[in-house]
Each structure stands twice: as structure tokens, then as C-alpha cells.
């Protein structure tokens, strides 16, 4: 009985190894530096993580169908620039936000259509949209930052990135909402089930009478939508849009997804894993900052975390089968 329980506990720890890793990380750093585990610092980390985490949710959807979305950073930059200029021309914020989100959804949908109808690999298709949209952003902004200005609209818009609700920064609420909805969609809706099916075996999914192309367009549209949301947050926080915003964000998002245990082969993974993955990377960066370790070493640390996570998935995960 005792061995059975310890066996179960071991299995649980093994399955939840990313949470365990996160808790161990928090524990160690808290012991070394008392400034780490404070409410202010935790909220600070969560707020910093929110942009990557939100993008990573979209990336999870795409990776679940065995795709990849390299265009998220470019979508973030272009939607951010458009949001900044719309707010700058003092359009009502409640109009600007849905319009920009819709625009981002369309941009993602374009990648999806290229993948689904053009039968282009996701890597290539989104390499195209990544480059294209970055170019469009540069043309649109003329390579200069766009300020949201000093109007009342700009003030209201800044709430998205800098505001607080019940003492918690708004981006954290948005992140929580995004994860909750994504979890629900993947777990409790038909399209969620179809996403896993498509990633597991496209031919079988097609033969099961499921419109595979529609799902492909859907997941890229979701990724575009969430990239636009991230673009709004970033622009709102800085009160301006940088034409080079979001460069290499796709890699951070992929890292969070992979550390969270989602397989790049598709069909396997959980959105809550992605949250843990994003948090591990976020907490690690913050901890290394607090410990006065240079940002050069932070890159090395991040690389090692990704490597260890993937190796653990390969060696521990495969034992079950």
C-alpha cells in the first residue's frame, strides 16, 4: 500500500515535472534572495511574462497541429503600429481595440490560408508572412516609432498595459483570461478535439469527415488574434509602437511551448503546460537579474532550460509507452 502510494506520487511528480521544476526554481531563488518571493516582484514577473505567454498560447494551437508560426512578432509590430496611429488620431479606444484584434486575426488567417489552400509548409508560409509583415510595418511607420499622443484616448488606451484591476496589473488578467478560454476550447469543444486529431494524423482526420483546412485557418487566426492582443499590450505600455517590436518573439513563444511539454510533432500537449513554460522562463530571467547575473548568461541559462526540458520529455515521457 505504501509503495503503491509512493509509486503514484512519483508518477504524479513525473507527469507534473514542469510545475515541480517551477516550484524548485522559486524555492531556490527565494532562499538565496529574499526580494524574490514578494507580491510586488511576483506581479512584476507575471506582467513581464504576459506578452510572451499570450503569444505562446496561439503558438500552442499552431504547434498542436504540427505547424509553426514565425509571423507572431511581425503581427505584433504591425498591429501595434496601427493601434498607435488610430489612438493617435483620437478614435475611440473601444473601437480601436476590436478593430485591431480583428485585423490581427485576418493577418493570422492569411498564413492559415497559405498553409491550408496553398499546401505550403507552415514554416515557409509564416516565414513569408513574417518577412512581409515586418516590411509592411517598416513602410507604414517609415522606420520610426509611432506615439499614441497625449489625448484622452491615449490615456484610456494606456490602461491596457499599465492599469490595475483589484490591485493586479491588467495584462495579468488578460493572460489569465486567454489561458482559461484556450484551455476550455481545447478540452471541451469540438474544434479543440479536432485540433488534437489533426496534429495526431491528418489523413485520418480528413477521412473522418472533418474539414481540415478550416481548422488550419482557425489555429493561425487564433495565433494572429493573440499576437494582436500582445501588440496592443506592448503598445499601450510604452504609449508608442516600435517598428522593431516583437523581433524574435516567435522563438520565445516556441521555447515556452516546448518547455511546457507540447510536442512539435503535433497532437500532444496542453495549454497549461505552456503557461508553466512561459513562467519558468520568466521567473528564471527575473531571478538571474536579481542575482546580478549578466544578461549574456541569461541566454545560456535559457538555452539549458529548453534543452533539459526537451531531454526530460524524451527520456521520461517515452518510458510510459
Amino acid at each position: 500500500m505504501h509503495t503503491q502510494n509512493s509509486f503514484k506520487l512519483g508518477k504524479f511528480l513525473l507527469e507534473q515535472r514542469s510545475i515541480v521544476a517551477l516550484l524548485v526554481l522559486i524555492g531556490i531563488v527565494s532562499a538565496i534572495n529574499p526580494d524574490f518571493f514578494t507580491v510586488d516582484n511576483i506581479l512584476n514577473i507575471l506582467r513581464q511574462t504576459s506578452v510572451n505567454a499570450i503569444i505562446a498560447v496561439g503558438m500552442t494551437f499552431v504547434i498542436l497541429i504540427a505547424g509553426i508560426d514565425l509571423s507572431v512578432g511581425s503581427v505584433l509590430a504591425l498591429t501595434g503600429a496601427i493601434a498607435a496611429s488610430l489612438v493617435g488620431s483620437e478614435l475611440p479606444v473601444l473601437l480601436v481595440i476590436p478593430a485591431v484584434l480583428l485585423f490581427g486575426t485576418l493577418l493570422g488567417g492569411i498564413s492559415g490560408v497559405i498553409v491550408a489552400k496553398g499546401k505550403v509548409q507552415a514554416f515557409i508560409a509564416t516565414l513569408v508572412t513574417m518577412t512581409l509583415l515586418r516590411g509592411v510595418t517598416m513602410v507604414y511607420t517609415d522606420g520610426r516609432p509611432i506615439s499614441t499622443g497625449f489625448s484622452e484616448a491615449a490615456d484610456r488606451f494606456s490602461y491596457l498595459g499599465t492599469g490595475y484591476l483589484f490591485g493586479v496589473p491588467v495584462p495579468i488578467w488578460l493572460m489569465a483570461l486567454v489561458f482559461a478560454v484556450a484551455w476550455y476550447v481545447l478540452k471541451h469543444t469540438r474544434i479543440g478535439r479536432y485540433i488534437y486529431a489533426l496534429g495526431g494524423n491528418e489523413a485520418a482526420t480528413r477521412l473522418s469527415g472533418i474539414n481540415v483546412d478550416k481548422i488550419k485557418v482557425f489555429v493561425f487566426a487564433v495565433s494572429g488574434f493573440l499576437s494582436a492582443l500582445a501588440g496592443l499590450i506592448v503598445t499601450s505600455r510604452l504609449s508608442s509602437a516600435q517598428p522593431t517590436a516583437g523581433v524574435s518573439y516567435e522563438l520565445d513563444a516556441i521555447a515556452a511551448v516546448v518547455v511546457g511539454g507540447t510536442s512539435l510533432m503535433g497532437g500532444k500537449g496542453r495549454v497549461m503546460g505552456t503557461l508553466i513554460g512561459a513562467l519558468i522562463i520568466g521567473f528564471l530571467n527575473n531571478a538571474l537579474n536579481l542575482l546580478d547575473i549578466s544578461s549574456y548568461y541569461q541566454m545560456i541559462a535559457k538555452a539549458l532550460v529548453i534543452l533539459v526540458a526537451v531531454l526530460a520529455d524524451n527520456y521520461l515521457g517515452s518510458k510510459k509507452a
Partner: protein
Amino acid sequence: MEYETLLKIKGIDKSFPGVKALSNACLSVYAGRAMALMGENGAGKSTLMKVLTGIYSKDAGTIEYLGKSVAFKGPKDSQEAGISIIHQELNLVGNLTVAENIFLGREFTTPWGAVDWKKMYDEADKLLARLNVPHDSHQLCAELSIGEQQMVEIAKALSFESKVIIMDEPTDALTDQETEALFKVIRELKAEKCGIVYISHRIKEIFEICDDVTVLRDGQFIGESAVSDLTEDRLIEMMVGRRLDEQYPHVDVPQGDIRLEVKNLTGSGVHDVSFRLRSGEILGISGLMGAGRTELMKVLYGALPKESGEVRLNNREISNSCPQDGLDNGIVYISEDRKGDGLILGMSVKENMSLTALDHFSEMWRIRHDSEQLAVDDFILMFNIKTPSRDQQIGLLSGGNQQKVAIAKGLMTRPNVLILDEPTRGVDVGAKKEIYQLINKFKQDGLSIIIVSSEMPEVLGMSDRILVMREGRISGEFSRAEATQEKLLAAAIGKSAVKN
């Protein structure tokens, strides 16, 4: 026995957490003889082979090879010692030539360290000539048929000077001619004093090509016997541990109205096909591989495009341009290729079973998990699917249980016409009979069923009427009473009469 024993595996035990996979498993291989290794799916055949080649370590038992006790460290080790396994899934690199595949990782080199291409191709050609393969070793493997690729694997085994060659379900994907060619090679290998282990479900082949049989059941050694001392019934009894009184339980059902009417259907490898199907009728489709049977079914279902012709269901013209249309019109197709496009092996039993019918278990976009689970559990019970739970990953079930899930998946959509493509491929004898009984049950309920099968006894045993296809056309139609294996074969290969 007076034959030289090449390999003697005795008393092997092997446990995995929670399962005893092998318990006192034995197998002997004799020079110049073919040993059939038989048993239902999950009987421990593959586990035993993995223990032999050192992929799994054994808990107990001995392996003697050429008179010496051995313990191989892995497939490479055992292959170099002269034991080759030809797996069901061939391990060839399509973009390399035949010779490159045969000598992959062991290329001949010149004194400078460059690859000695001439020697490699010469040696490969010699091996191919020995096997009577009419191909050049410069050809790419991807251009060869499955049967020819298998010959390449055998050539590779010969290049190791293998004494023991293990073949795992070698004829599963072969045409009849290719099977014949394979048997010829096996006979030659036997003449050269090789020992063959032949793993197959096809009892007919065992009687044709094997000299001895070893039967495993539930991981245990049941017996070894010369094939000549056995009857088919006795062999099946050894495998399943019970008598299978009638293998193909045909039931007579009063035929209903015409359900499906196909007129001059043409498209994707199908030419001018016409037939009718009534409710409560089982229509068998026979023919050689590549005769267009699967294509015809996929055109009906909507998975392949139709060019011309008319399909009427319940006297209403329908047009299926994608599988959704097929399902909406009440036609469902269960693929011959479970791994390829039939099931999603990484998903659970439940998720696979309900995938096609998910809208029956949904309100708007939301899945109603309770009603989904209820329906899945019903089918697990009705189909006697052996799975620890509905959440078990389906790839971990045996072929028979996977196939039951695949059929259940089709039935969940409540179809008018059920198309089963090779419904018992890779399914063990016991589960086969269960599947036949289920098919009959749905036939009695008035379902119209089409069975595509390469196993003639299955088509003959189950069908009310049989169509034979050849080169995309219907080349023969027989009632249950008039159909014989000879007539089906004659129609399939296009001769007026065939001597058996």
C-alpha cells in the same frame, strides 16, 4: 528430430510492470526448415523476437545459437551473428538505391577510404540474382513495389550470411504473385540450410510453406508440431484455446429495398462501375491489390473525386465531393489502413471512436462529455473491446481491438451504408470471429454493408453477393451460391478458367 538445431530458445520469462508478457516461452529453429510462430495478437510473438535480438532483457530462460549460449546486445549484434529479422514495416531508405540499402552502414571502401561503388553494386547484383529479382541494384528503393522491397530486405539478410531469417507478417501487403515469389525464395533458402521463422496469421500460408509450427498463447509455449501432423482446425484450437466451430457465420436475412444504386461511376482509378446494394445485404468486393477496390469505396465516400456517373441512395441522387458529404448522406468508410488514415494512434479509444460522430455529442460547440462517454462505453461493451479504460491510448491496443474501435467509430454516425475495407487485416482469429458476428448483427438490423477483402474465404463466407474488380472495372458478379475461389480468382486475373 534429426535436423540440426540452429537456435533454441527455452523457458523465457519476461514481465513488464503489471503484465507478464512471456512465461516459459520456447522456440526452436532447425536448419533447412521453416518454423511458423503462431498465436493471437498479444500472444507474445513480437516480445519473444525482441528478447531474442536483445531489445528487451529476459527475466529467465536461455538462448542457444549454434550450440552456444548467447545474449545479444541489440538487433545489430544479433544480425552480425547471423540472425536477421524482416519486419512488417520495411526499414529501407526510399531515396537510396537497392545496393546502398543492402550495404547501408557497411559500405565497401577502397584503400583510400572512399566508397567502393563498383564492388558494392556487383555484390548487390549477385544477391539479387540469387533471389531472381529482375531489378538492377542501381534502382531507387522507392520505385520498387512492397514485394520487391521485401526481396531487398531478404538480400540484405543474405549479405550478412544469416543462418536464421525471421519474417514478421511478410505477406500482409503482397499481391498473390509476390507471395508466390516470396515462397519460392523461402524454399531456396531452406535448400541452402537456412532456418526460417515465419510469423503470420494466415493459416493457409503456414500449411503451404512451413514445416513446423510453434504456438504461443498468452505468452506461454503451447506446443511445437510438424505441420503435416496438424489440421487447420487443430491449429486454430491451439491458438485460441477453444474450438471455433464455424469461422464465417453467415446469416440469411430477408432482403429489403434497394439502398444504394451506382450507375456508370468513373473517377480516380475507377471505370464505369455499376451495382446495387439492398438493405440487410452484405456485398463482398474481391480482386487483386491495385484493382481499384479501395478507390471505388473512397469515391463513393467522397474521399476521392468522381468524374462521371450517378450514385443514388434511397432513390435520391447524391453527390459526395468530400468525406463530410459521404457522412451527411449516410455512407461511412472504414479504412484498410488503421495506422495510415484509419485511426489516430496517439489519441484515446474514446476520442477515436467519437471523432466522426462528435456533433451527435455536442451542443453548439461544446462537447457533452457525459453523453459521449456513455455512447463509447456502450460500444466497448457491445464490441467486447479489451481496453483498461476508454481513455487508453489506442495505439497500445492489439490490432483486433483497434479494428473494433474503427468499426464502432463508423457505426456511431448511424450510417445507411457501412463500407469495411479489409475489416480483419492484422486481426487475430478470435477477434476475427467476433467482428464477423458484429457485422452480421448489423446486417440483421437492416444495415447495408460492403466488405472489401483480399481474403477470399472471408468474402465467400460473409457475403450475400460478390463483385470482383480488375483494373478499375467490375469483372465479375456472383451470387453466394455460385461463387467459388476459382471463379473469383479467374475474374480477378482476367482468365476464363484457372487451374488450381
